[in-house]
């Protein structure tokens, strides 16, 4: 009999059905991977198991007994601990203090020396060595994660839930982490870990549950499957849509990147000697698992992130010394990944957001004076053309739906008549109708001779419109395939680095 059973759990947020009828069976002492794309419902499911959300329907059993969790405190009492994707540590406190924090001993004084000794012993027992007196801010990410795991173990957790544990780790730290998981398993712990990286699943998991769009699409033994099979199950069948795929003669090379290196916010090389080009009249799709350098790549092309080394050229001329504005004026359109934080000012009106990137040029302003009437007038025209549904151009963008916000961004970037369009996560969070609109617009632009770099983690959407597909893995291009040869399986292998050996 299974140790932990999740039986028919459903959960919705407003009109959005995050989970429907999810079943999960976890055996005692097994490493169980939950695999799925972004938004598949993995994290929601784990949050329910940790008592952060209450399910609308369904039940959970632990050791055959019903499991009702109204808060994480309940979960901890029942021996369930969770390690979140973003660490919950107090950076200015040391390791022992962080682990002891919240143990709740009332007014009794805390015997730090005793705790420290226990933590040290526990660390060496599980292969999670970390100096208990080191302040957390001095530790690299890998060690901070150990502190998080120790925190959970210190509370006598039997079941450990890890939410994308490797996404914050540097490549060198990942192997050590996976080894740690097997040690914990040998010590009798049950581990559930969320990931979208196939290689990790193959390395350590005993069983795999694949989730897609809020449902469990399969549950299988890790030893009896292959990365290829998992990739197919993860991505699933394409949603049938009316995208008119057309192609034309590919023109000159418009955008070229050579050996580009750029750092992420932590100072690690997120884009690592990446070479890529985009030609007039083509859509070059760039897919890959989230967090492999896509965001940094988009930003370094647009000029929002400094280029460490390498070269970026537009129509043969180097642009890496140019500002964001200068690159825009050279005809580089950019739709960033972070729609609400970067692409739009949420508390500005639609009209103002439409001129956000051109506010200091005619027609939006002349000699430094804004032409508010003209701005409103142009916005009305663009709203009609791009089917932005809102009461008026003066409505704040904050109150638009995600799809309409995306249309505002697209309208602005396309109306700027770019020669090159770098577009990230074009369809993220959009409904089917909006996706169809966006995809068809991109094809129209391509037919008009614009060079498009389409960066997305949503493989099926890239495949719908791209002429060539490249895969980004750990900051460089793992491979490029013409659309005819790009099937889910081959791309899936490239996306998880599994294909690197085959290609070499």
């Amino acid at each position, binding site marked *: 009999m299974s140790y932990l059973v999740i039986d028919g759990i459903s959960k919705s947020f407003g009109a959005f059905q995050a989970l429907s009828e999810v079943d999960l069976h976890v055996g005692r002492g097994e490493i169980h991977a939950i695999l799925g794309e972004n938004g598949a419902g993995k994290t929601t499911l784990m949050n329910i198991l940790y008592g952060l959300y209450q399910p609308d329907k369904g039940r959970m059993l632990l050791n055959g007994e019903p499991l009702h969790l109204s808060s994480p405190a309940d979960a901890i009492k029942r021996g369930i601990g969770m390690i979140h994707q973003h660490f919950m540590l107090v950076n200015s406190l040391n390791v022992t203090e962080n682990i002891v924090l919240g143990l709740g001993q009332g007014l009794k004084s805390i015997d730090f020396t005793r705790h420290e000794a226990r933590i040290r012993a526990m660390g060496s027992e599980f292969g999670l060595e970390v100096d208990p007196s080191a302040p957390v801010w001095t530790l690299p990410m890998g060690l901070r994660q150990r502190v998080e795991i120790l925190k959970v173990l210190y509370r006598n957790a039997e079941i450990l839930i890890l939410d994308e544990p490797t996404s914050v780790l540097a490549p060198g730290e990942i192997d050590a982490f996976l080894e740690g998981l097997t040690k914990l398993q040998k010590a009798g712990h049950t581990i559930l870990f969320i990931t979208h990286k196939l290689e990790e699943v193959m390395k350590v998991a005993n069983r795999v549950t694949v989730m897609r769009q809020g449902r469990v699409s399969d549950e299988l033994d890790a030893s009896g499957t292959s990365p290829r099979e998992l990739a197919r199950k993860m991505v699933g069948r394409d949603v049938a849509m009316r995208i008119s795929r057309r192609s034309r003669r590919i023109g000159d090379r418009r955008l070229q990147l050579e050996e580009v290196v750029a750092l992420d916010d932590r100072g690690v090389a997120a884009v690592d000697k990446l070479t890529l080009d985009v030609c007039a009249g083509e859509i070059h799709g760039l897919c890959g698992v989230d967090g492999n350098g896509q965001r940094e790549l988009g930003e370094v092309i647009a000029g929002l992130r400094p280029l460490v080394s390498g070269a970026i050229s537009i129509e043969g001329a180097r642009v890496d010394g140019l500002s964001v504005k200068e690159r825009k004026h050279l005809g580089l359109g950019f739709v960033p990944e972070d729609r609400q934080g970067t692409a739009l*000012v949420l508390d500005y009106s639609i009209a103002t957001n439409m001129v*956000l990137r051109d506010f200091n040029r005619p027609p939006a302003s002349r000699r430094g004076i804004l032409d*508010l009437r003209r701005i409103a007038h142009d916005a009305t025209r663009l709203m009609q053309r791009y089917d932005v549904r809102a009461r008026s151009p003066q409505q704040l963008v904050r109150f638009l739906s995600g799809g309409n916000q995306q249309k505002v961004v697209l309208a602005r970037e396309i109306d700027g008549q770019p020669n090159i369009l770098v577009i990230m996560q074009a369809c993220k969070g959009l409904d089917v109708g909006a996706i169809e609109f966006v995809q068809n617009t991109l094809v129209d632009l391509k037919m008009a001779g614009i060079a498009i770099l389409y960066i997305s983690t949503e493989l099926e959407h890239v495949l719908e419109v791209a002429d060539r597909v490249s895969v980004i893995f750990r900051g460089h291009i793992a491979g490029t395939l013409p659309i005819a040869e790009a099937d889910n399986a081959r791309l899936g292998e490239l996306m998880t680095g599994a294909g690197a050996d085959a290609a070499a």
Partner: protein
Amino acid sequence: MERLVQIAYAGRTIWAVLAALACGSILFLIAGADPIKAYIALFGEAFFDFFGFGATLVKFSPILLAGLAVALPLKAGLFNVGAEGQIYVGALFCTIAALFLPFLHPIIHLPLCILAGALGGALWALIAGWLKAYRGINEVIVTLLLNYVGINLVSYAAGGPLMEEGAPYPYSAEVPEGLHLPYILPPTDAHAGALAGVVLALVLALLMRYTSFGFAILTVGNNAQAARYAGINVEHQILYAMGLGGALAGLAGAFEILGLKYRLFHMFSAGYGFDGIVVAFIASANLALVPIAALFLAGLRAGAQLMQRAVGVDSTIVDAIQGLVVMFVAASLAVRFADSRWGKAMAQRRANEALVASKELKHG
């Protein structure tokens, strides 16, 4: 009904001020005075008495400009708590320009003195602006601490190199009469600085609303990441906003010298820079509303002295009332209409009405 509630809500700052004054009356009662008489004395003298209004305008000039000096950087998301120090440095620069420039016709010399004041304040604020833009250092701490440096710099100058020979107290020589600002309400001390402040407030409000310069600053204040994406040089905007704020405070200092004191005194400002924070706050950083908030506060300040004589209550009670005003306004700003009980009640009412209306339609 709903409209009425919304209108009442829009004027919540005014309600907060009235509530603070009502609470203040308890203080008067404790002090043994009739609150109604005290308020009549306070506001009657400050706003409806010729000399009293003159005294209000004298305080209005620096308080208004300091309010702008805080409100403008706030548009770019910067909190300038250093207007006091900028007032002092502006006054210092202005005094030096007035006393040491070779003889010039006042028509040229006076604008130069005013500009020197603005320059002094701007440079002082730009120290914090530069550190914020290029080193990421918290501007609140830098501007706050530079206050003391600025104040002591003036104390040193007024008691040292600039001190008038034989003066009993640290102050400089008098600036030439040709450089004195014109009076606007003779024979009171009210000077042209008050008018200049109002004009500047309106010009700046228009600048922020209708020019690409203002738009860039507002965008940085709203979302710096989006501003960078929009091609705006965020660092430059931080420098502009801070520099402009400092220049306004520097002007306040220059006008104090040229319009009222005529000498650089040690410790000459009565905390106007800090009043500026209160003013910007009451006006919720709306540049066009800053003059109104400044007039209210200047009236409180000027009326306090006169009230003390009229009803025999210590004028420090007015400081306490000012504190109450700040607390009440803060509380009122924290409430958003949609989240308030009234807002929820109104939303429920709307929903009910819609339901009834749809039923009527079906029946009809």
